[in-house]
């Protein structure tokens, strides 16, 4: 199926029924934090989690990044009660997931999109999930439409492409219209259009006041989506900061220069005391000189240039900067 006909994310006017005590008239649900405190988990000889501690806030997409094996998936599995931590706790809205009566109306999770009974249709896959939460078939059809699988709903899930499985997994997470969403590597197997679609979905979910935690091992996927970043390594949090801060720090004082005379420019700037790195065919990044000093040095040496601008780091650069010191990221 084409990605072009994917409907824009929309939510039903009436939220599905919730447990008593829910409040928050403006959002239709009570926004919730996810609080992970001091999680430790050992699998045989491997210390998968080693004092993992962070909080996921509502209203923003929180990126959860780190290399494979950093403990991202294990943390998410502990949050939804699949694995039991050796130490520490994970609470959703102050409550343990395992004590929730209809947990999917509080937390939606996409942990493994390939977890499907291949001979069952997508609609039936969602139907049993919905029924386990006391939800009906109508809600199933809503989320199928929401993720763009309405026309493929009665096909066997075994015949789905990886991208369609990701969408089905997202539909399952959205089924209970929960205030907290956990997505483990949701971009896997998606083509660029699919990635763009998920980014839009994540943004709108967060904008609706939900707490959204998205794990990825590729920083570029989270570019322009994540408002907050939790960087994990070796089972603990290495950094836990707002994305804007991170990028500002990584951009700090650097200048991007575009010139056709790259060699001469680098020589002139080095003489002026700058550290120069080639970042493209005609682009270099200059550190140690301000924009004005760079322009002065180039003019003095009569080197032509097309552009001198303050450098804005990509999320990936910020991540590299952040993790340069840590051996586990090599």
């Amino acid at each position, binding site marked *: 199926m084409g990605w072009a006909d994917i409907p824009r994310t929309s939510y039903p006017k009436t939220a599905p029924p919730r447990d008593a005590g829910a409040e928050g008239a403006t959002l239709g649900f009570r926004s919730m934090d996810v609080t992970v405190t001091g999680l430790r988990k050992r699998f045989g000889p491997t210390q998968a989690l080693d004092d993992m501690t962070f909080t996921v806030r509502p209203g923003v997409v929180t990126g959860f990044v780190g290399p494979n094996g950093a403990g991202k998936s294990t943390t998410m*599995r502990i949050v*939804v*009660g*699949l*694995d*039991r931590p050796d130490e520490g706790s994970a609470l959703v809205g102050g409550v343990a*997931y*395992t*004590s*929730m009566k209809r*947990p*999917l109306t509080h937390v939606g*999770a996409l*942990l*493994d999109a*390939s*977890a*499907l*009974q*291949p*001979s*069952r*249709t997508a609609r*039936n896959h969602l*139907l*049993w*999930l919905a*029924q*386990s*939460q*006391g939800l009906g078939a109508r809600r199933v059809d809503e989320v199928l439409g929401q993720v763009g699988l309405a026309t493929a709903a009665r096909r066997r899930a075994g015949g789905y492409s990886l991208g369609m499985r990701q969408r089905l997994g997202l539909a*399952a997470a959205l089924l209970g219209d929960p205030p907290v969403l956990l997505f483990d590597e949701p971009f896997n197997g998606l083509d660029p259009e699919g990635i763009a679609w998920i980014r839009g979905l994540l943004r709108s979910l967060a904008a609706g006041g939900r707490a959204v935690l998205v794990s990825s091992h590729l920083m570029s996927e989270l570019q322009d989506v994540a408002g907050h970043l939790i960087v994990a390594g070796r089972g603990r949090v290495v950094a836990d900061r707002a994305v804007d801060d991170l990028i500002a720090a990584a951009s700090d004082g650097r200048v991007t220069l575009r010139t056709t005379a790259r060699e001469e420019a680098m020589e002139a700037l080095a003489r002026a005391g700058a550290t120069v790195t080639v970042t493209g065919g005609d682009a270099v990044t200059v550190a140690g000189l301000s924009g004005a000093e760079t322009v002065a040095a180039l003019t003095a040496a009569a080197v032509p240039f097309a552009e001198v601008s303050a450098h804005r780091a990509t999320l990936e650069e910020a991540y590299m900067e952040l993790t340069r010191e840590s051996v586990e990221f090599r």
Partner: protein
Amino acid sequence: MIPLLRSEWTKFRTVRGWVAGSIAAVLLTVGVGLLGAAGTVRSCDGPQGDVCPVTPIGPGGQAVNDRFSYYHQALPGDGSITVRVAGLSGVITYPPPDHDEIVAGVVPWAKVGLMVKRDLRQGSAYTAVMVTGEHGTRVQDDFVGDLAAGGDRWLRLTRTGGTLKGESSPDGRSWDVIVEKPFPGPALIGLFAASPCDVTLSQGTLGGTIGACRLTNVTGKFEDVAVEGASGTWAHDDVGGETGAPPLSVGSARQWGSTVQLTGSGDVGPAGMEGGAVLERTLTGASIGLIAVIVVGVLYVTAEYRRGLIGATLAASPGRSGVLLAKAAVVGTVTFAGGLVAAAVAVPVGIRLMRDRNNDIAPVTALTEVRVIVGTAALLAVTAVLALALGAIFRRSAAAVITAIVLVLLPQILATASVIPSSAAEWLLRVTPAAGFAIQQSIPAYPQVEDYYIPALGYYPLPPLGGFAVMCAYAAVALAAAIVLLRRRDA
């Protein structure tokens, strides 16, 4: 629990393989059962051609043995007979250990005593008080009734106004009533003697069990015979006697004064499984259907592990135990329904096929028939739950299927296929889930009848519900263990 049941039912019905497996279980149970029934051919080639003897049916509707030596008078109204059993003697042909000679002896269930019987037809109603070879004085009536009544040798039967009273006495003076029941209408009253064949079971050198039933007879010496109110004319008959029977089995009576010496062979009692083909013969397919049931039960849970779906299931139901209970309810109900359909088709159709092939079907009460049919469905359903629990414990299809088959089917096959000694077979059918197959046994083992009560011939060591309870206990323990493990382990 209701949402979980709906959810698990949706899971079950939306996987074509599981639905197909459940249907296969029904078809296998019916198909294999009917094949077995169609293959049960009875042929009785004799001087009169292929004419099979008709098994007598008792007043209670069951097949009976009714062959004995009867020295009797007519009893039109009230009357009584009193005797002292002075002694039992007899002949046993070729008894163990060497089976090489005919010896004097009395088998444990040789019976001599007094009997009031409706008429000389086999299977007609009777009430008797008797002295047995080794089981003391007893009261027996209408073939299945049997009661121990001490050890007195003086016996009396009295009929007054349609009520029959049996008494015993140590000395002929003080009498204890040991039975009292209505027995109105014209009847016969007199002395009887019967001696069932001597049953021996031995282990074959190449496996299997060899049963032998060797002819015996008994002679009862009755003294102080006193009859009142009867016709006064003695007659002797071998009830159920056959022409051309061996001389030792032919009865005789000698009387001098008030002393009678009566010799007889045969037995008066329920027929057991020689009374005809048994009902459950039409349900042998259940053992094969069971394999499909086991596979479906196991896959219903292991498929979730294989596909990683168990994570979604447990995230939706973090209480976890409810998931397995709901699964057990769904797979148990589906299998029970399928088993009920299968058994309800296989039994009547199979009986029809067997009757067409000259077989008598050992008659059972409607209640027994219902128990066998519903029990077969329950047997399959509980096996499905056991298989499910094993699947949840092992989380691997192959290991769980093999374990379920080894637990349920293998003991059943080993025990009934006569490849291991009967004692081992009985032990297996007591301690393994295969004990549950006892619920299919339609003809009970009667303690008052010496017979080949071995699993190879369809006799289970535990009573129907007792055996079924053993199987249920296995399923319950396995399910409890599966729940504990499911709650304890990471998904």
